[in-house]
C-alpha cells in the first residue's frame, strides 16, 4: 500500500475517499482494505483507472461494487464542497488582502459563483443520479430517467477555475507573494483533481450504469 501511494501521491486522496486512514504500516492493499471493510476490487479498479493516462473504460470484473463506487464519489463531493473549495477561498482571501479593494471583491465574487456552480453540479448528482442508480441496483427501473440524460448534461466543471487562475496570472495588479503562489498551486491541484473526478464519472461510472440499464431491460 505504501508503494502505491509513494509512486503516485494523488492516490492518497482516493485512499481517504474510500475511508482508509493513514498508518497502515507494511500491510498490502488487500490487507488494508479488509481491515477497514473497503471493497478491494473497487478500490483497485479506481486506482488503476486513474493511474492509466488513457480514457479507456476498463472491463469491470464481477467483484466490482457499484455501491462502493457511489460512496467514493459522494466522499469526493464532500471533499470538494466542504474542504477543498472553502480552504482555497480562505487562503485566497488572505493572499489578496493587499490588492485594491475592488479587485479583491470581484475575484472573491468570481470564486463564490464558481463554488456555487460546483455545488449545483454535485447536488444534481447527489439528488438525482445516485438515487436513480441505487434504485436500479435494487431492480427498480425508473422509466422517467436514464443515464444518457446525465451523460448529456454532465459538463466540465474545471473550466471556470482555469479561467480564474489565468485571470490572476495575467492581470493581478499587486505584489503577489508566496501566499498567492501557494493558492495558485492549490488551484492547479484542484483543477487536476476535478478533472480526474470527472474522468471517473464519465468513463467509469456512466458506462457501468449503461451496462446495468441494458441488463435490466
Amino acid at each position, binding site marked *: 500500500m505504501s508503494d502505491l501511494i509513494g509512486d503516485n501521491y494523488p492516490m492518497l486522496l482516493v485512499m481517504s475517499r474510500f475511508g482508509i486512514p493513514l498508518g497502515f504500516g507494511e500491510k498490502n492493499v488487500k490487507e488494508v482494505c479488509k481491515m477497514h471493510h473497503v471493497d478491494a476490487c473497487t478500490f483497485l479498479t479506481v486506482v488503476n483507472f486513474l493511474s492509466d493516462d488513457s480514457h479507456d*473504460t476498463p472491463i469491470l470484473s464481477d467483484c466490482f461494487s457499484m455501491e462502493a463506487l457511489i460512496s467514493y464519489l459522494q466522499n469526493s463531493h464532500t471533499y470538494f464542497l466542504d474542504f477543498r473549495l472553502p480552504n482555497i477561498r480562505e487562503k485566497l482571501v488572505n493572499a489578496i488582502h493587499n490588492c485594491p479593494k475592488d479587485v479583491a471583491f470581484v475575484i472573491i465574487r468570481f470564486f463564490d459563483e464558481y463554488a456555487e456552480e460546483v455545488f449545483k453540479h454535485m447536488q444534481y448528482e447527489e439528488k438525482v443520479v445516485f438515487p436513480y442508480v441505487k434504485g436500479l441496483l435494487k431492480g427498480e427501473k425508473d422509466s422517467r430517467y436514464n443515464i444518457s440524460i446525465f451523460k448529456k448534461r454532465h459538463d466540465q466543471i474545471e473550466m471556470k477555475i482555469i479561467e480564474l487562475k489565468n485571470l490572476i496570472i495575467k492581470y493581478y495588479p499587486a505584489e503577489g507573494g508566496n501566499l498567492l503562489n501557494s493558492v495558485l498551486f492549490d488551484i492547479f491541484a484542484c483543477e487536476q483533481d476535478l478533472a480526474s473526478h470527472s474522468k471517473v464519472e464519465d468513463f467509469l461510472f456512466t458506462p457501468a450504469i449503461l451496462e446495468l440499464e441494458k441488463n435490466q431491460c
Partner: protein
Amino acid sequence: MTINLNIVVADPSVIIRCGIEATLKRIQGIRFHIDEVSAIDTLYEFLKKRKPDILIINPALLGYASLSLLREECACPKLKCVALLYAVAERSLLNQYDEFITIYDTAEDIKNKLEKMSIHEEEDKTEDDEELQTLSSREKEIVVCVVKGLTNREIAEQLYLSAHTVITHRRNIARKLQIHSASGLTVYAIVNKLVELGDIKK
C-alpha cells in the same frame, strides 16, 4: 506566437501512443494538450465530449469507417485527421485523411506537417493575431456593457449595432482574452479600470 493544439492519439499500442506523446512534447512553439485513446468506442465518446483540434489515428483502428461520418457523428466538423502509419500504406486508403505521419518521422517533420495543416485554418486569423489580446475600443465598450449586466439586445440598442455584430464582438473578446464568463470579464474590467465597482453592484 505559440499555437495551442488539442490532440487525441488513437492507437491500440501503448508504446506507440506514449512515443507519439513524447515526440510531440519535444516540439517547440506548439503547446499540446494530448489525450490517448486505444479503442474505437472510446474514441467516439471522447470526440463528442472534448472536441479536439486534431486526431492522430492508426487507420487500422478506424477500419473502413469513413472519416466524414465520424466527424458528423461526433459533431466535430472541423476535426483534422492525421493517419499514423507503421508501414507503407496504399494511397487510396489515405485519401480521406488531411495528412499522414509515419513512425519514422522526426519531431521536425511532424511539426511541419501539423503547422502546414493548421495554417489553412489560421490564415484568416493572422491579422487578429498581430493585435492578439488587446481589445479594440469597440470591444472594450462591449465588455463594459456585459459587465453591467446588459443583454446582447440591450447592448446592440445602446451602441447602435446589430445583435449579430454584438455576438461576433463577444466571440472575439472571448477568444482574445480566453475569458468565457461574464464574471470573468468583470474581473478583467475592474483590473483594467474599464468600470468601477459602483457600476456593477446595481
